Structure formats: structure tokens, C-alpha cells
């Protein structure tokens, strides 16, 4: 029943505006700051999803952000100021995200925002930060539209976008299947990110001349409680390969349900099998499936995972939280470094000046030096692909990937001309 699987949170628009307090339930209290001007403190804000099935991304991402801020504060702050983080839950709802952003900027005088998980929320926050001239750093949400159709000089993206990521997965697949004719299904959450990333994957298959036939496409709601009807339609179509753009708990649920159909025996699923889904699925992780990830800790030392301090960050994160950092934590850390670099370069917290300073800049981060190209503010970050292994890794004692393929940024990014053409 589609209605059964409808968006988990059918909150009223009124309540959506007030969900911020739920952050406390999720273990991250929204701290109220005295504001930018008082007592040598400046505030940055992060509205992200801290509840529901994808909360792991928001929680660990926020840990990464907090980690980086703590490091800055431990070294005397930024321009002599102590940095304070305010955070709130957006419940994966665009309206709540926009409202949180506005509250952080108006009430807490936040001078920078760090991005949400969900691209639709990110897109709702963009006009708000533009109105108040505050820079925003997307490190999880990655819809290409955020930097093209919705372009604003105040937005920066340090995560592979919805052209880059599926292109990397398609490269890997093309290499694997060669000239063979294959059938393909897709499964993605029904909002901008899902449709955009699936479109990116199909386009990449075309560009790579893969001989494929699309047999089924399903778009269940984000955080659907019941995906059974979508899944049975996908299973019934018997695709040989499935590109799945779900993430976090949604991907875990998919994998468990699909296993009940014996799906993985005959179908190779290509999905974001990153640390959390693999760890949650444990022995049930589908060996042989193709995983992709934006900053897997087990790719340490490879391009994009080899900046100064990466190994130290992984170790101290593990020491503090008793688990390896997610890609979200790693990217969150680098997002803060990016902002801090811009502040130092501009010599001020002023949003317009910081944004201008960062446009086209080469920023040293734990992931290596990131170039935020001037034309659309996309960082030249790689994407990582691999095959889910059958046994736990000897080094990390977790079911991870057999090997790591690095899709270099230059091979998967749009050109500036292509990017600008999408601006419309």
C-alpha cells in the first residue's frame, strides 16, 4: 500500500516548524548562544536530520563538525574568537530546515551554516542563507541542482555531487560488464536527490556505452516505513543489476527485506554500502554487492583521504566514540576546515567576504587540498567504489570492501561550461 509507506513524519506544517526541540531527544541539545558579538564568541549553525531512519548520517556528521570546531578552539579559536555550534533536528523536512536556518541566523547570529543531510532541505536553506548573506557548506547533501539550478555565491559543496557519485559507480560497473548486455533496475528515494542521482547514473551508462536495458524503476518515499510494495515490483522485474540510491537506515531496511526474497543471489546491488549499513547488517551484508562511498576511512592514504591529520583524526575519533568515523564525520570535519580557511583568508567572519575568499581557493584539509572551483563552488573530491567482501577485514574487524577503486574528481566532474549550462 503506497499510503502505508508514506512519509514517516506526516507532521503538520506548524509542528514542523517547532521540531527543533526534538534534537534534544536525539542526544544533541540545541544550545542557545549569546550571539556573535558578545564575549569573544562566534556561532555557527547546523540543522540536520537527527531523528528517524537516516539519523546516523546527521549524528556522526555533527560529531565531525564538532570535532573540527573543538580542534580550532583548542588552538586559540579563530581570529581570536571561540567558536560555538548550535544544532537542531530538521526531521528531513525542508520547511523545518529553512526555519531552523532562519532561527540560527536571526536569534543566534550564526555566521556560517553547515549543511543538512537531505538535498531538498539544503535547497530550502539556500534562499535563507542568501537573503542573510551567510555561507553554507554542504558536506552530505549533494544534488547537482544545489550548485547549478539553485546556484548562490554563498553555497559550497565538499562532497561528490549527484553527477560525480553515480558516474563513479557506472565507471566501475562498465569496467565489470564490458560489452555484455545487462538488465538494470533503479531504487531511490522520491525527492530531488533520488531522481537526480538516478538520472546521473543512467546518463553515465549512456556516456560509457554500456549495453543495458532498464527494466524497473521505483521511487519509495524517503524514510518510508514500508517499502514492501516497491520492493516486490522491483523483484518481480528480475533485474541483473540494481542501482540503489538509498542510504543509512533506509538502505539497511532494503537489504534486509531484499534478502527475504533471496534477491542478492541473482542480482548485484550497487548502493552506498558505507560504514553504517555494513556494520548494521553485519553477517547479513550482501557479499559481492557493489558499494560506493564518499570518504571511507578504509581508503586511508589514497587520493582524497591523504591530507595532513587524517590518520590522527580517524584514531582520535575512534578513541572518543568507540567506532571509526563515518564518511559524514570526515566530510563534516573538512567542511569546517574549509570555512575556517576562508575566515582566515578574508580576515573577517563577514559572509560575503568569506565566500569571496573561498571562491576558487585551494584549501588544505584532512582529505588533502580541496579546490573550490570558482564557477560553481564544487570541490574536486573523488568518489570511492568497491565490492562488499565476504569476510571481515583483518585490519578493521568489520565487513568492508575487497578493494577500493578511486574515481578521480577530474574524471567524474562536469566541466564549468556544463555546470553553468544547467543553471538555466
Amino acid at each position, binding site marked *: 500500500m503506497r499510503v502505508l509507506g508514506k*512519509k514517516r513524519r*506526516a*507532521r*503538520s*506544517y*506548524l*509542528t*514542523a*516548524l*517547532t521540531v*527543533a*526541540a*526534538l534534537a*534534544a*531527544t536525539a542526544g544533541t541539545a540545541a544550545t542557545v548562544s549569546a550571539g556573535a558579538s558578545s564575549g569573544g564568541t562566534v556561532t555557527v549553525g547546523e540543522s540536520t536530520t537527527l531523528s528517524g531512519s537516516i539519523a546516523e548520517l546527521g549524528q556522526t556528521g555533527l560529531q565531525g563538525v564538532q570535532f573540527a570546531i573543538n580542534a580550532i578552539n583548542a588552538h586559540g579559536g579563530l581570529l581570536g574568537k571561540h567558536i560555538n555550534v548550535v544544532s537542531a533536528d530538521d526531521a528531513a*523536512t*525542508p*520547511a523545518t530546515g*529553512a*526555519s531552523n536556518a*532562519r*532561527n540560527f541566523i*536571526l*536569534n543566534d547570529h550564526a555566521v556560517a551554516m553547515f549543511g543538512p543531510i537531505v538535498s*531538498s532541505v539544503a*535547497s*530550502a536553506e*539556500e*534562499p*535563507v542563507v*542568501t*537573503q542573510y548573506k551567510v555561507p553554507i557548506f554542504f558536506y552530505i547533501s549533494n544534488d547537482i541542482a544545489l550548485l547549478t539550478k*539553485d546556484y548562490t555565491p554563498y553555497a559550497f559543496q565538499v562532497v561528490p555531487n549527484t553527477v560525480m557519485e553515480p558516474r563513479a559507480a557506472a565507471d566501475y560497473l562498465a569496467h565489470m560488464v564490458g560489452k555484455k548486455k545487462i538488465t538494470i533496475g533503479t531504487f531511490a528515494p*522520491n*525527492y*530531488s536527490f533520488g*531522481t537526480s542521482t538516478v538520472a546521473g547514473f543512467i546518463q553515465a551508462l549512456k556516456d560509457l556505452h554500456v549495453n543495458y536495458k532498464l527494466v524497473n524503476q521505483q521511487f519509495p*518515499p*524517503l524514510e518510508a516505513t514500508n517499502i514492501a510494495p516497491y520492493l516486490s515490483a522491483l523483484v518481480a522485474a528480475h533485474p541483473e543489476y540494481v542501482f540503489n540510491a538509498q542510504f543509512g537506515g533506509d538502505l539497511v531496511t532494503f537489504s534486509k527485506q531484499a534478502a527475504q526474497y533471496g534477491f542478492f543471489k541473482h542480482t548485484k546491488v550497487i548502493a552506498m554500502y558505507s560504514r553504517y549499513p555494513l556494520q548494521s547488517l553485519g553477517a547479513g551484508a550482501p557479499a559481492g554487492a557493489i558499494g560506493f562511498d564518499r570518504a571511507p576511512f578504509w581508503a586511508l592514504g589514497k587520493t582524497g583521504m591523504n591530507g595532513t591529520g587524517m590518520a590522527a583524526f580517524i584514531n582520535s575519533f575512534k578513541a572518543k566514540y568507540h567506532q571509526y568515523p563515518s564518511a559524514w564525520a570526515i566530510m563534516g570535519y573538512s567542511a569546517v576546515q574549509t570555512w575556517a580557511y576562508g575566515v582566515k583568508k578574508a580576515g573577517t567572519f563577514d559572509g560575503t567576504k568569506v565566500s569571496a575568499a573561498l571562491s576558487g581557493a585551494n584549501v588544505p584539509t584532512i582529505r588533502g587540498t580541496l579546490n573550490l572551483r570558482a564557477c560553481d563552488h564544487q570541490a574536486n573530491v573523488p568518489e570511492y567504489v568497491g565490492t562488499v567482501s565476504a569476510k571481515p577485514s583483518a585490519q578493521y574487524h568489520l565487513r568492508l570492501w575487497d578493494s577500493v577503486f578511486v574515481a578521480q574528481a577530474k574524471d567524474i566532474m562536469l566541466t564549468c561550461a556544463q555546470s553553468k549550462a544547467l543553471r538555466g
Partner: protein
Amino acid sequence: MARTAPNDAAVAAVLGVPASAATGSLASRVGRAAALVAFVALVVVLGLTLAPANALELQYAVSLTLFAVATNLILGFGGLVSFGQGIFYGVGAYTVALGWMHQSLNFTEAMVLAPFFGAVAAIPLGMLALRTRRLYFSLLTLTMSQLAYVIAENQTNLTGGTNGVFGAMVPTWLLDPHTSFLFTAAIVAVAIAILWKVVHSPFGLVLRAIRDNRERVEALGVNVYAHELAAFVISAFFCSLAGSLFVVYSQSSYPEILNWTASGVPVFMAVIGGMYSFFGPVVGAFVYEFASHYLIEYTQDWQLVIGAVLLAIVLLRPDGLAGSLGSLRAWLRRRRPVEQATVAAAPENAEGTP
């Protein structure tokens, strides 16, 4: 208004409904007007002096009072329990947002057209919905609300889908919180004044008569269906206006404003404030919005608190806070010398209590 054989004023006279609803002595009427003016003045002063973020919240609450009063035209005065007014609120909001997104209407055009679009949408929906009564009317309007929600969510090319529409759709001169507050307050004041006129016109009196005794009014040759449809359309007109003001506040429109819980909100506001009183829903809107917005700074349990308030009111004080105010006044009066001891309960008595 409607193609009725007897005109509304005559019907009202036959039914013995007083032509003017402003009951009570001159002194109490003056007192009431003074209280109203003081209240409006307080809201305006607050709106202009509060910090931007709080002024925005107040602006939102003010726009919700219109939503609640407009819904209450059919709820409290028409006896029609609609869980579908969110549709018209959404039509208003989406008119402005989509006008901007598709570059088909500029802001002013969209603001002017929004209420008319709502009214036009209400004609076929009302014609269908009013074929049913009581519980079935509620369920049918609830279903319509969900249908509108699902359409807004899935017709991505037209509506922006689950993402909703967010962007710079409000002109820059309206971005300052104090300006947009004044803009909203002025429109809401005019709209509520018009609704007051409607409620206290012969048409409004007949509407109330239908609510109280449908068969008797029908027997007088009144076209009940036409009256209810007219009320439904007028309510939709002002719900849409409130929806367009939501865009002024939020600079966005999204599917959730159309679903059944969103449609329930103005009903709950009217119930909290008192649906048999014209200004009851205004009280309810302020209570509901401030409860859900500010309560959470002190407790996470705003749902629990609002639920408890709703429950207490519906079980103990069906005439809402405004009704309670009336009873309180009556109780105070009872403690004075005996002659004024005649006190009746709502609905009639609570009428017109601010």
C-alpha cells in the same frame, strides 16, 4: 447570495434571530469594542518593537488567526466540520509560490488572484462535499485534503514535488520583518472585518439557523444547499488569502500544508478558542501557535500539552476559551446583586465575546 425564494433578512426575522448580533447593553458593547481596539493596538506595537525573529512569529500567528476565523465560518456558524480547509490554504500558498517558480505571475498578481483561485476550487469540491452530512462530510473533506497533498507531492514538474518550493518569491521591500508584519496585519484586519460582516448579515443569520435547525429552515423554503455552498466558497476565499500570507512569512510552499493534519489545525484552533464566538478562533490561533512554538523552549512535550488542552476543552468546555471567559464573567456577575442572574450556556450567549 443564493437563489432562495424568501430573502435572507425575511427568513431571519421569521426565525426570530436578532438582526444585530451585537447583544448586550450599550456599555458592554463599548467595553467590548475598547477591549478589541486595545488588543489590536497591543499586537501592532509588539509586532513593530519585537526582535526580528519574534516579530516573524507574531506575524505568522496573526496570519493563522485569519485561517482559523475563515474556517470557523463554516465550522462554528455553519456546523460543517471540514478537515479540508488546508486545500484552500495550500491553493493560496501554491499560487504565489508556483507563480514565482514558473515565472507566470508576479508577486502582486499572485497575491490578488490567490483567494479567487481558492474560491473557484471550492465550488466543485463544495458541491461534492455538501452532498454528504456530518461525519461523512468530515471524512470526505479529509480525503480531499489527502488527495491534494498526494497530488502536490507527486506532480513534481508542476509543484516541485516533495521538495516543495523555496526561494526569493517575496519582493525585497517585504523582506523586513516589521514591514511584512504590518502588511500581514493590515490584510488580516480587513479580511476579518469582512468576515464579521458576513457572519452578522442576514445570510450569516440564516447560516446559523441552518446549523441549529436545518429542517425548519428548509421548511421555510430556503435553499439550504446553496447557502452552505456559498459559505464554503467564502471560507475558501479567505483560507486561500491566509495561505498566500503564509508565503509572505515563510517564502515557501510545500505539500505538508495540504494534508489532513494541516487541515485539522484551524479546526483545533477554533475548538480551543471557542467556535461559537466570532473571535474565539483568534484566541485559539494565538494559543495554539504560541504553545507549539514557544512551549518547546521549556518542554519537549508540546504535543502532549496541546493534546491535553484539546481534550480538556472538548470534554469539559465545548464552547472553548472564549466561552469560558463568558462563563467567568457571568460567574462574577452572579456574585453581584441578584437581578442579572440569568446566565445560559453557549452557543447563543457566547456570541460576540471577544
